[in-house]
């Protein structure tokens, strides 16, 4: 059985997994012909060497955290929202286009409308797999992944065709936002903007609703035992669809943050599988909201550090993905590894006992 919750044993296995993952990463680096020690030093340097990098990793931690929480929200009621990537992209392009079309309107109005558009588009897009899961019982993992690809292609079409930026010489990008609509940058020339304050509030709200309210309790019940929840009077179908809607809206907002805080126009680099990295963080955190928040910072440091390492030491930054997934493998297998070792040692002891007894009776 899965041990729920966060306790010392979880922290210990997390620490061991992280150490082992770095060790395996070092082996892969060495095999590929890099000096692991230098590479890891370059990684730390890449994340902390100056204020700009610190700003970048804080911004990325925000993205990971909100994406991870969106995933947690779904998994709490027993539905895996793997489609956050598509919801994020659609939210981003919708928010961007709102800003371009409403050019000239007051800042507050534009930002409000853009946020609403991003949430509506992301939420509605998440509603498709949600409704299909609840009403038709279609596996949501496959549908959400297909919808990701569909959304990415559709956004690419919009950015190349109808909404193409006439002034920029980019292959696929929408029109640029007027600078007065941009979020204020908190650390100069970094990606960090005021969006992180909104994101922090969102993270707090999600945590509060999930852990401290009766709705949160109903969600937990629905995820753990849907039949019991249904018979105790919880409208489980509605709850699942609602959670999917909010999860999608959160992903859409992340897209808007990326547009208004960092890129200031839509192009495909707005998210490079960022939602999947958030999902990975949620998995490592065992879908616990507080742990997601803390781990987001850790993995954001790793990611930005890895990018710095690529620039300074020439090591491909994908070593970051390898380390992250090795951590998941260890964390997911933790119970299995322990039981395997325990049963092996028990078998050994039983065998030894049997032999001792057998020896006695013969003598």
């Amino acid at each position: 059985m899965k041990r729920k919750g966060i306790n010392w044993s979880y922290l210990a296995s997390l620490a061991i997994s992280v150490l082992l993952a770095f060790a395996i990463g070092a082996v892969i680096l060495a095999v590929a012909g890099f000096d692991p020690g230098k590479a890891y030093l370059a990684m730390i340097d890449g994340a902390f060497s100056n204020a700009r990098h610190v700003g970048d990793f804080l911004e990325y931690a925000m993205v990971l955290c909100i994406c991870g929480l969106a995933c947690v929200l779904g998994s709490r009621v027993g539905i895996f929202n793997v489609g956050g990537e598509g919801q994020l992209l659609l939210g981003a392009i919708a928010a961007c286009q709102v800003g371009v079309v409403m050019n000239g309107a007051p800042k507050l109005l534009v930002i409000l409308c853009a946020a609403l558009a991003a949430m509506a588009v992301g939420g509605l897009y998440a509603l498709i797999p949600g409704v299909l899961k609840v009403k038709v019982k279609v596996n949501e993992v496959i549908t959400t992944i297909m919808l990701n690809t569909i959304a990415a292609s559709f956004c690419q079409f919009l950015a190349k065709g109808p909404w193409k930026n006439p002034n920029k010489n980019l292959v696929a990008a929408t029109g640029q936002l007027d600078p007065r609509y941009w979020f204020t940058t908190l650390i100069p020339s970094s990606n960090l903007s005021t969006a992180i304050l909104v994101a922090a509030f969102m993270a707090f709200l999600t945590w509060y609703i999930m852990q401290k309210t009766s709705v949160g309790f109903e969600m937990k019940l629905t995820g753990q035992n849907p039949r019991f929840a249904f018979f105790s009077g919880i409208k489980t179908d509605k709850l699942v669809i609602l959670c999917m809607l909010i999860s999608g809206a959160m992903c859409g907002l992340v897209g808007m943050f990326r547009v208004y805080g960092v890129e200031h126009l839509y192009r495909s680099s707005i998210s490079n599988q960022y939602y999947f990295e958030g999902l990975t963080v949620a998995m490592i955190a065992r879908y616990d909201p507080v742990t997601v928040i803390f781990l987001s910072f850790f993995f954001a440091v790793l990611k930005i550090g890895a990018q710095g390492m690529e620039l300074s030491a020439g090591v491909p930054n994908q070593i970051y993905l390898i380390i992250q997934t090795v951590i998941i493998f260890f964390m997911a297998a933790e119970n299995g590894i322990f039981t395997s070792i325990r049963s092996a040692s028990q078998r050994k002891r039983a065998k030894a006992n049997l032999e001792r007894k057998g020896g006695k009776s013969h003598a």
Partner: protein
Amino acid sequence: MLEDILGSIFSPGTFNQMLRSATPVALAALGGAMTEHAGIMNIGMDGMILMGAFFGVLGSFLFQSAGMGILMVLVMGVIVGLFFALFTVQFKSDEFIIGTALNTFALGLTSFLSRSIFGTAGTKGNPALPTIHIPLLDHIPFLGTVFNDNSLFIYLTWLLVFVMWVFVYKTPYGFWLRASGEKPETLRTAGIQPERMKWLASILCGILCGLAGAHLSLGQLQGTFAENMANSRGYIAFACVIFSAANPGKAYLAALMFGFFDAIGLRLQDHISSDLTNIIPYAITVIMMVYVVVRGRQKKRHAHRLKAQASPGS
């Protein structure tokens, strides 16, 4: 205009393209059928395909021979299969987490190694698999273009579909394989460990998905590796497994259907933006998923009704 479009859609080239697009999906779906029968939910096929694609090209690059590439893919497939089984069968980890992690791991590892070995631009022009020319087909007008001069794997896939079908439905191993997924305890009572069959299924899946990747990189693209070139084909293969109830023959037909829509998309690119035509196979997959579930439920209801009619007393 419309006649032009229809003409280009129903040309032999389209059906040839259908075969080409369907083959990697079909090979992966064959592998997925094995794990599905063994009761493992395998969404890690995308990563397995990607690993196959990369190590095929790597082997071909290192030894300058496509045959060595295939050999490397087979070894890699066994290792990936063992790895997947170690976590899902031995450690009883969450299959969804392991599958997702395997996909991300494969993406990270192949991109990392590709950049370390070939540089950021990737690699192309390595020794590729031969195409097969059947002189007999030269004189048959339509079918000749469709079936002739294809990459080796297209023909190999037909053979494999048949072999896997025989394996699953006509041999004791196939029977045990299906039992290990449906009634593992019964199988254990019969004296066969269901875990062994699960390990076997996982290894077979690793090999078949690896071959699917090898076909992509060494066959279809003539020795090219590009980052993330599996491009969600593993998930489409998973959908094919579900449509076909893990029957190898039907899985191939499902893959052909995917290939057909993919080919139509490619043909329509002259008329519509390629970004929109890319959507077609994925949208069809979603629609088919819904259709399969709805039809399954109707069948069940129908069976219930028949039962009720047969015994009106109860």
